[in-house]
């Protein structure tokens, strides 16, 4: 049985950002366990809000359009604060290229992908500076009103 289309989008995002130059296979879904040194730099993908579009042009009695937000959080440990921030922007570039290469993410029901804000955070209280960058992507997609997998 097909998954909810929101789930299919998250899976496509993970597939599309796995194997990037800086983060490689260190890509995780909603990871709650702490990242050890040997699993950074990393990307952690979180499901965000999924808001139906209510304007008349994007829905009908048969289908509904929605905007699904997916958060991609980059985590790095760096030598200095500045290098940490630079690496976050390098990862950001790679993620953006990967997700914007195909605005459908390879899914017939995804109409568009848009990039939202990216919020950095640097923590210097530990043995090395830890940097995180929370990137936001929104996917405009269409699904059946009665079956979210179709």
């Amino acid at each position, binding site marked *: 049985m097909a998954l909810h289309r929101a789930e299919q989008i998250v899976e496509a995002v993970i597939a599309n950002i796995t194997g990037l130059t800086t983060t490689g296979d260190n890509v995780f879904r909603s*990871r*709650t*366990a*702490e*990242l*050890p*040194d040997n699993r*950074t730099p*990393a990307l*952690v993908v*979180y499901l965000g809000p999924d808001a139906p579009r209510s304007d008349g042009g994007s829905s009908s009695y048969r289908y509904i359009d929605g905007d699904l937000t997916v*958060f991609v*959080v*980059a*985590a790095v*440990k760096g*030598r200095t604060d500045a290098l940490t921030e630079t690496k976050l922007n390098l990862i950001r570039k790679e993620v953006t290229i990967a997700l914007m290469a195909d605005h459908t993410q390879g899914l017939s029901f995804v109409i568009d992908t848009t990039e939202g804000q990216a919020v950095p*955070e640097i*923590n*210097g*209280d*530990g*043995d*090395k*500076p*830890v940097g*995180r960058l*929370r990137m936001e992507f929104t996917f405009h997609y269409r699904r059946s009103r009665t079956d979210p997998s179709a």
Partner: protein
Amino acid sequence: MPFTEDLSQFVDPDEHGTTAQYKGSVSVNGIFDNGSYVVSGDAAVEGTQPTFLCVEADVPALEHDEEFLIDGVTYYVDGIKPDGTGMVLIALRLAE
């Protein structure tokens, strides 16, 4: 009334103290801690939080970014926190 205790006994390397080198070859005794530390939240990252507690008078003119060599590992001074009683807690960062 000033605290007149001999503070060096608290960092004696024959007890639980450690000898570190800074400013190239200057030795200083202190208590080295390197406990677990987690940067929590989304994409939580684990690590440690190295510190060196020593007698403030033993590290005159200590500055941020100076090197500290402890047990063969090089750290940089990341924070200097005198406690007001003659001891100072030095926050360290791994030099990699």
